[in-house]
């Protein structure tokens, strides 16, 4: 498979670009924030995503979805990144769908997702840094399990209908599909720097049926995380790309010392270096998406994509702010939002260091 978008994929990109830029530009995020919105995204927008079919992008056609792959999902996510659109798309339509696919729970949740009603959240992290240690306990109880423990950094965790919860059973790791309405579950929503809302969740003996288990062993969690990390990488590419565009635009327009600052060689070289890093990151992401879609072993490509986009987009926002000078520091200008979102995405599902370390371990050192 050549490492670029097919004509169909380019067409999808045009559609997604127009739609997201029109319906959820940065001003949309800004207005949610300024209104002190407590949901963290617009449910209307989520339904519009459904109307376009986006919420079913990974759902098989036989189950009413578009039956497309991670390349296509990434195309939508990149536009979400470019516009900083608050959306449960990544957690719901990508990660949750990927985890539910082929399980008994798919029939229960896919219709709501296809309709743009159901929202899913991912309850994975237990400490301030993402890591492989899961301590939330799932004990056998009745004809199911009882969950006890806590989670944090759960985007949409307070507004979701469905929580995908990584837990520890007697037999090892397992992934649970827990309805948000379950008794004993409390969600403590926290606004983050990028105006998104992530919850701290407490599971106080939450009782679930046996069929809440959607995967035992590491496989299900790994599949969910691969989808989530690749998605976050695509979103980072969007954030970094938009930052570069904004910065290049500013360099061409801002005058100092009687010249457009984009004519200064030092800034040109830094911009060219940044462009290179972002292009390389983009390639790494597309590679991971394609491998996920062909069903090959994508573990390393996924880690690579997340690690590389973390590097490239972090550089993009740093250079973006510095090259803009004072105006980039103002809340009125959009650039700061990009820096904040980049930071959150870089941290999400493991940062560059986490994945680089994982790759080193996988390579035997």
């Amino acid at each position, binding site marked *: 498979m050549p490492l670029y978008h097919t004509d169909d994929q380019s067409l999808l990109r045009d559609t997604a670009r127009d739609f997201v830029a029109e319906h959820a530009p940065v001003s949309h995020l800004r207005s949610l924030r300024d209104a002190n919105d407590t949901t963290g995204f617009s449910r209307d927008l989520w339904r519009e995503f459904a109307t376009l079919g986006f919420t079913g992008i990974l759902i098989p056609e036989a189950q009413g979805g578009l039956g497309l792959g991670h390349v296509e999902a990434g195309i939508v996510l990149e536009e979400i990144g470019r516009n900083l659109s608050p959306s449960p798309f990544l957690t719901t339509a990508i990660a949750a769908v990927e985890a539910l696919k082929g399980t008994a729970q798919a029939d229960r949740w896919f219709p709501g997702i296809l309709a743009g009603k159901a929202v899913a959240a991912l309850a994975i*992290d237990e*400490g*301030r*840094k*993402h890591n492989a240690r899961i301590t939330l306990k799932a004990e056998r109880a009745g004809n199911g399990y009882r969950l006890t423990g806590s989670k*944090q*950094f759960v985007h949409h965790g307070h507004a979701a209908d469905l929580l995908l919860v990584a837990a520890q059973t007697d037999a090892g790791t397992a992934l649970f599909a827990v309805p948000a309405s379950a008794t004993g579950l409390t969600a403590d929503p*926290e*606004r*983050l*720097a*990028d*105006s998104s809302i*992530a919850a701290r969740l407490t599971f106080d003996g939450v009782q679930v049926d046996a069929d809440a288990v959607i995967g035992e062993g590491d496989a299900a969690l790994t599949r969910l995380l691969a989808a989530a990390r690749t998605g976050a990488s695509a979103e980072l590419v969007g954030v970094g790309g938009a930052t570069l565009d904004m910065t290049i635009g500013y360099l061409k327009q801002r*005058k*100092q*010392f009687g010249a457009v600052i984009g004519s*200064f060689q*030092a*800034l040109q070289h830094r911009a060219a270096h940044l462009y290179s890093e972002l292009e390389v990151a983009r390639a790494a992401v597309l590679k991971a998406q394609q491998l996920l879609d062909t069903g090959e072993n994508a573990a390393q490509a996924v880690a690579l994509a997340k690690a590389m986009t973390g590097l490239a987009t*972090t550089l993009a926002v*740093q250079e973006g*702010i*510095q090259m803009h*000078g*004072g105006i*980039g*520091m*103002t*809340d*009125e200008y959009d*650039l*700061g*939002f990009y*820096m*904040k979102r980049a*930071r*959150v995405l870089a*941290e999400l599902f493991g*940062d*560059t*260091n*986490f994945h*680089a*370390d994982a790759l080193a371990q996988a390579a035997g050192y």
Partner: protein
Amino acid sequence: MSDLDQFRQETRTWLEENCPPTMRTPMRSEKDATWGGRNPEYAHPDQKLWLDRMAERGWTVPDWPTQYGGGGLTPGETKILREELARIRARNPLNSFGISMLGPALLKYATEEQKLEHLPKIARGEIRWCQGYSEPNAGSDLAGLQTSAEDAGDHFIVNGQKVWTSYADKADWIFCLVRTDKSSKQGGISFVLFDMASEGVSIKPILLISGNSPFCETFFDNVKVPKANLVGELNKGWDVAKYLLGHEREMISGMGLGAGSDPLLDAARKGADPLLRAQIALFQVRSQAFKAMSERFIDELKAGHAHPAQPSMMKYYGTELNKTRHELLMAAGGSDALEWESERSHGGAAARTWLRTKANSIEGGTSEIQLNIIAKRILDLPS
């Protein structure tokens, strides 16, 4: 016992008696800083006590002459005082752009009347100053500034707009660059002082990405400024501004030096993944070496050995370090550090400070400007 040893002993005793215990605890937030001014804000009454006691001895500005409210200390005594203050971890009795920026410029360029008028009030924290340099179309390029001061006999009429005026909304007076001659670029700029309560001054705070508003836009609409408030010669304000920028740069570069216990080391000790640990370890090499550089710079400055453009190097290096420090702190803090409003995160202190540091390499002359200065004035590279 040498004179200096004796001075140290006396200072130590005096500080033990006069520095309130509350003023030896670390500041919890920016609100704990003492800025003085006509409408001073004190989070704790001991702030005022501590300021008054220090000002009484002239020790808010220990090396200024006594007639201007200073302590009249020698460089050696000043160093000892600072060491003794650091020893007991005393808080700064007075944060002040008047001390760190304007004062040195007045000492060098002002008339005797101006010195006697302004310096003692600065020393006692009675008047809070702000700086009016940057304009919407004159950021890095100060020579492009347009705020005009027209000659109206015994006063100027000032019209125009400044941006990035630090704490203009809290300041009593402003030191300000104005254009007094439109025919030349750098040559036509003058340095004036005026009261922010003057008619025609209006202020609009700028909300920053950190969620705070330490800077303002400041507008001047036919503001009357007495000619007696001109510092230095007419049309030679550029010299004053350059001199003063050097001091601003030093102050900002000081941010590279973490004081007291180091939150980054604390974070590392709590456990960081191996790659972050490696990054912190390498950062610490530069950070600690820069501490040595700061000592060296101050020593050279005192001895008159420092290259006049060395403050640019200090400002460049120190601010870049500080940005890196907070990137590392954010990485160490993980998702905890991303919270923006929670009590647990002290209202998003980590993230807000991280975002604030991004301005370090912009304000007071961008890193790019400092590199230009180093290249041209120290390395003698051609334009």
